[in-house]
Structure formats: structure tokens, C-alpha cells
């Protein structure tokens, strides 16, 4: 029995080897389908994980208060586009009388501008903030120190660099004590010199508000010395207030307290919309997932088309070869093959093609995913479900189109199959 199976397998292999063109074209269909699905789904999942990872990585107790309205499922208006949040609002949020469940409040005022050291020139977001920014985002200082309260009070010309920003600006040099120059937007070439007092430890993960690329300065410095951070009344404004709730359970309570406080401060009724938005991590995650889900579905659709194309490729080869194969089947039956012999032969051929093609497809697909991952364009996460989906579909198509014409031909009387034109 075993030797029979081995021998059938051997004759299937011989059959494939004697017709290399047909075999390799069929296999190509499987390879393309499997590789495309694995690569695309891996990239989709990688993008999703890197984005959601950057949000959850910041800490799950966080809330963000921003001017303007934040639309769920829509496009977030750029932070700071409305000048409705003042520094005084941030101080009020930090007041335990108004928001008792807030543990940390870190206001932030930041914009993109040119940062220069020597010949190194970087367009980066310069973020003004306070000492509480460090614990709120769980940042660690690798060298030097973080921004302290006296820096904020005295508008010190200092900066703390993220690990990547420090590398970009200084290469291998020690940044501590060096002066970087920051362009003042709209000043026609005016610059502010800042002394680097600290470098953050690498954190990794997030890309949107990446702490590794951060250039942090005291918020007062950002508002007055670098940017024009004042509203029409001359009050200092903020682009975001980061709030850490005392615990994960208190996040919703903090959101309610802040909303009530700001509605009152901005002169709105308790049921009105307001000119600010309070967003929790959960809200952000839902919104971002809605976006990334579209991406995953989109890539999945492309992958499905690839599978279909691969499947049609397999089908074409199988159907085109049916004339020749029908005569072969007729001959095999004429010399004594049973229908079951024919089906076993074609089944084995299809299995061998699908397995080899599937294996090559997995290798190519995973290879593409790893290449994309290594290129740094985006993360790519190869999931076993993607592999399973791709392989099972291609194997199913391969088996179906391998056996279906064979089954039809094997049911004919030998002389009919032999005469098939």
C-alpha cells in the first residue's frame, strides 16, 4: 500500500517533470496568489499594529484636550488650528478643585520649524511643554535632565532632544551643553539659540507623535520666543492639553469634569457643543482603527484580486491542457487504468503543484513582507491566518481545477476520450 502510494507519487512527479512548462505555469498561479495575499495582509496588519501600538504605547490613562472639534470617524482638524485653548485653561484643568481625578496635566504648544546645528538641518516639530510631560508619556531621560518648573517660569532657552532627533542633529557628538538654533517662523530668518540640557532614552513604537523625534522646550519659551503663541487678547494659548487620569477607571470621569469646566470657562451652556474636544485613548483607538480597517480591507481586496488572478491562471492552464490530457486519460484507460487510478494521478499532480507552489508562495510573500519591514517604510506583520487563508484558497483552486476536467475525462468511455479533439 505504501509502496503503491510512493509509486503513484513518483509517477505524478514524473508526469510533472515531463511537462515542465505546464507544471511551472500552474505553479506560478499558486505562487502569485499566495505571495500577494501574504505580503499585502502582512503590510496591512503591520500598519494597523504600528499605528494602534503608538497610541496604546503612550499610556492608557491619557486624555487629550484640543481646541476645535474632533470628529469621530472623520478627519481630525489639525491641532492648534483654533486658538480657543489658553494656558489659563490648562492651569484650570490642573486645579484639583475643578478636575479632582486628573493626576497629571501637561499642556503643549508646538509647531513645525527648522532646527539647525552646524551643517545639520532638520524640519521638526518643536513642542513646548512643562515638567509633567515626562511622567505623562512615561519618558526616560538618558543623559542630562528634563524640563523643570523654573525653566517654564523663566522662559529658559533650553531644549531636550529625543534620541533620534539628537542623532540626526549631532551624529556621534555629545549634544549636552551644545546650542541648537531654531528658526522663528515668519520672522524672515530670525533664530533662537537653545542649549541642549537633556537627551531622552529611545522609546520606539509610535510615529505620529514620536518621542524619539521630539524636540522639547519649555512651553513659555515656545509661546513667546520661538512662535507667536498668543490669541487676539494676548493670552498665551496651547495646542493640546495632555491629561493623565488617576486611574484607567477615572478616565471617563476626568473627561466629564474637563468638559464641564471648559464649557463654563468658554461661556457655553452645559448642553452646548463647545469649541474644544476631549479625546480619550479609547476614542483615538476607535477612530484610528476605523481608518486602518479601511486600509486592511483595501489591501485585502487587492489580495483577493491577486488570488482570483492566480486562480484564473491555474484554471486556464488546466482547461487549455484538457484536450491533450483527455487523450492521455483515454489511453491510460485503454491500457487498463480505472477511473480511480486517473483521479488519484491527477489529485497527486495537483497536490504536488499546490504544495510546491504554496511553499514558494509563502517564501516569496514572507520575503516581501520582511523586505518592506526592513526598508522602514512600514511595519509588516506576517500572520498565520494570512498564510492559512492564502494557501487554503490556492490549494482549493489548484485541486478543483486539477481534478474537475480530469474527472470529466475519466468518466468517458476510453474510445470517446481517445477521439477527443
Amino acid at each position, binding site marked *: 500500500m505504501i509502496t*503503491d502510494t510512493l509509486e503513484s507519487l513518483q509517477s505524478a512527479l514524473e508526469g510533472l517533470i515531463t511537462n515542465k512548462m505546464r507544471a511551472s505555469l500552474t505553479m506560478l498561479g499558486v505562487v502569485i496568489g499566495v505571495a500577494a495575499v501574504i505580503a499585502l495582509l502582512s503590510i496591512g496588519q503591520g500598519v494597523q499594529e504600528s499605528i494602534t501600538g503608538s497610541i496604546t504605547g503612550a499610556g492608557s490613562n491619557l486624555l487629550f484636550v484640543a481646541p476645535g472639534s474632533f470628529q469621530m470617524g472623520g478627519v481630525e482638524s489639525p491641532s492648534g488650528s483654533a486658538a480657543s485653548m489658553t494656558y489659563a485653561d490648562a492651569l484650570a484643568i490642573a486645579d484639583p478643585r475643578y478636575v479632582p481625578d486628573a493626576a497629571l496635566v501637561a499642556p503643549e504648544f508646538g509647531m513645525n520649524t527648522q532646527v539647525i546645528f552646524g551643517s545639520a538641518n532638520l524640519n521638526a516639530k518643536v513642542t513646548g511643554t512643562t515638567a509633567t510631560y515626562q511622567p505623562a508619556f512615561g519618558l526616560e531621560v538618558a543623559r542630562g535632565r528634563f524640563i523643570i518648573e523654573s525653566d517654564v517660569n523663566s522662559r529658559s532657552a533650553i531644549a531636550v532632544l529625543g534620541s533620534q532627533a539628537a542623532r540626526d542633529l549631532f551624529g556621534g557628538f555629545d549634544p549636552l551643553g551644545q546650542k541648537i538654533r531654531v528658526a522663528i517662523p515668519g520672522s524672515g530668518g530670525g533664530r533662537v539659540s537653545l542649549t541642549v540640557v537633556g537627551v531622552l532614552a529611545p522609546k520606539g513604537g509610535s510615529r505620529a507623535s514620536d518621542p524619539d523625534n521630539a524636540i522639547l522646550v519649555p512651553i513659555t519659551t515656545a509661546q513667546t520666543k520661538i512662535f507667536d503663541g498668543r490669541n487676539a487678547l494676548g493670552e498665551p494659548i496651547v495646542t493640546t492639553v495632555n491629561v493623565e487620569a488617576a486611574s484607567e477607571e477615572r478616565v471617563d470621569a476626568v473627561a466629564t469634569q474637563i468638559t464641564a469646566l471648559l464649557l463654563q470657562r468658554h461661556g457655553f451652556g452645559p448642553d452646548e457643543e463647545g469649541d474644544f474636544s476631549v479625546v480619550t485613548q479609547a476614542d483615538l483607538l476607535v477612530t484610528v482603527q476605523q481608518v486602518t480597517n479601511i486600509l486592511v480591507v483595501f489591501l485585502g481586496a487587492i489580495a483577493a484580486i491577486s488570488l482570483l488572478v492566480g486562480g484564473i491562471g491555474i484554471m486556464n492552464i488546466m482547461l487549455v491542457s484538457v484536450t491533450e490530457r483527455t487523450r492521455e486519460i483515454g*489511453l491510460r484507460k*485503454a491500457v*487498463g*487504468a480505472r*477511473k480511480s487510478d486517473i483521479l488519484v494521478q491527477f489529485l497527486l499532480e495537483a497536490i504536488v503543484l499546490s504544495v510546491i507552489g504554496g511553499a514558494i508562495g509563502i517564501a516569496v510573500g514572507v520575503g516581501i513582507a520582511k523586505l518592506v519591514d526592513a526598508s522602514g517604510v512600514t511595519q509588516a506583520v506576517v500572520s498565520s491566518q494570512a498564510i492559512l487563508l492564502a494557501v487554503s484558497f490556492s490549494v482549493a483552486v489548484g485541486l478543483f481545477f486539477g481534478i474537475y476536467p480530469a474527472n470529466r475525462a475519466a468518466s468517458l468511455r*476510453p*474510445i470517446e476520450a481517445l477521439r477527443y479533439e
Partner: protein
Amino acid sequence: MIEIREVTKVYQMGEIEVHALRGASMDVAPGEWVAITGPSGSGKSTLMHIIGCLDTPTAGSYRLNDIEVSGLNDNQLAAVRNGQIGFVFQTFNLLPRATALQQVMLPMQYHRNGSRLPRAERIQRAREALELVGLGDRLRHRPTELSGGQQQRVAIARALAQQPSILLADEPTGNLDSKSGAEVMEILRNLHRERGLTVVMVTHDPKIAAQAQRIIHIQDGLVVDESEKVAL
């Protein structure tokens, strides 16, 4: 050995029914060499296909070695084709990409009665069959590398592979030049004389038919004349 009684065969060609055989009867005794002749469309090939179990009769009785063939199922018919009959086609019907050795080993692969021969013995037997038809030096050749006569000799070797008691040849020289045809006929004659093989051959060529011991003449789906060694 072969007893055919009142066999009919009706083909459905779209709307039209084609009566290829209208009640043909004939016998072949063991060790005989019989030629079936007739004009084209007479039903001689259809009769041959039924004898070879490649086709089934619409009605009538066909007994092969005392077994009623029309009562057999598909798998039993496959076993008969495999073990009892060797069939040689006008168009050779070789696998396009297989070597001569592989062609001859094909029927052995489907051997069912008892255990199959080990691979080495099958190769040996196929080699002997090819040597018997004078192709001992062409074992690894593919059909495209062989002449028509050589291809037909491979087909004969394949028909002999399972050591059948009957060799059926449907216009075996029909696609060959006269020299190759003569070689093929020589092989058939030797097989009949020296091995005692029963040979049934279809041909429309009177000169080829004349080499048989007996000629069965078919016309319009009926056996019209049987003659012992007709003089031409």
C-alpha cells in the same frame, strides 16, 4: 475465445441516430489470426473497439474467454483491457513526452490481479518487450525521436507488456509507409506463429488482410462474408 452475437451499436449524433453495427455476429478461436475488412463506415472499427472493451455495445452479447463482457462494470472492464487484451491503434496513441520504456511500462502500472511486479522487474519486462519488436536500442527515446514504424513497434511492445492472450490491431499499418508497414506485419506474424497469440486485425487493405488465416468482411454493420484464406 471471442463470441459475438447480434451486437448492435447506435451512436447519437445530435438529432441523428447512427447505426454503426446492426447485429453483427462472429467468433474467433484461440490461436487464430483473423482480419476484419470492409469499406470505410462499415462498422469494422466500431466492432474492433467493442472487442477491445474500449466501447460498449448497445445490444447483443459479447463473450470473451467465456465471460459475458457486456455485464461487467467499469472496473472489471479496466481489468480485462489491462490483462487480457493488447490493443494497437492506427495512430499509435503514445504519451507525447514519455520514453519508449515508460510507454511499455504503463499497462503494468495498472495491474490489479495479485500484486504488481517490483519496479525493477517491470523495467526488465518492458525492455524484453521492446527487444522483441527490435527496439532494444531505443529504450530512452521519446515519440518525437522515433519514426512512425518505430512508434508503432513501441505501441506493439506496450500491447504485449501484460502478456495478453489476444492482440487487437486497428489498421496497424494505416499510417505507415509500405516498408514500415511490412516490418510491423512481420512482427505480428511472428507473434502469432511463435507465441501462439490470437491476433485480430482491422484493415481496408486487401494485401494486408490476405496475410491473415481468415477474413471477416463487414458491410453496413453486418458480417456479410467469412472466408478461409480467400484467394485474391
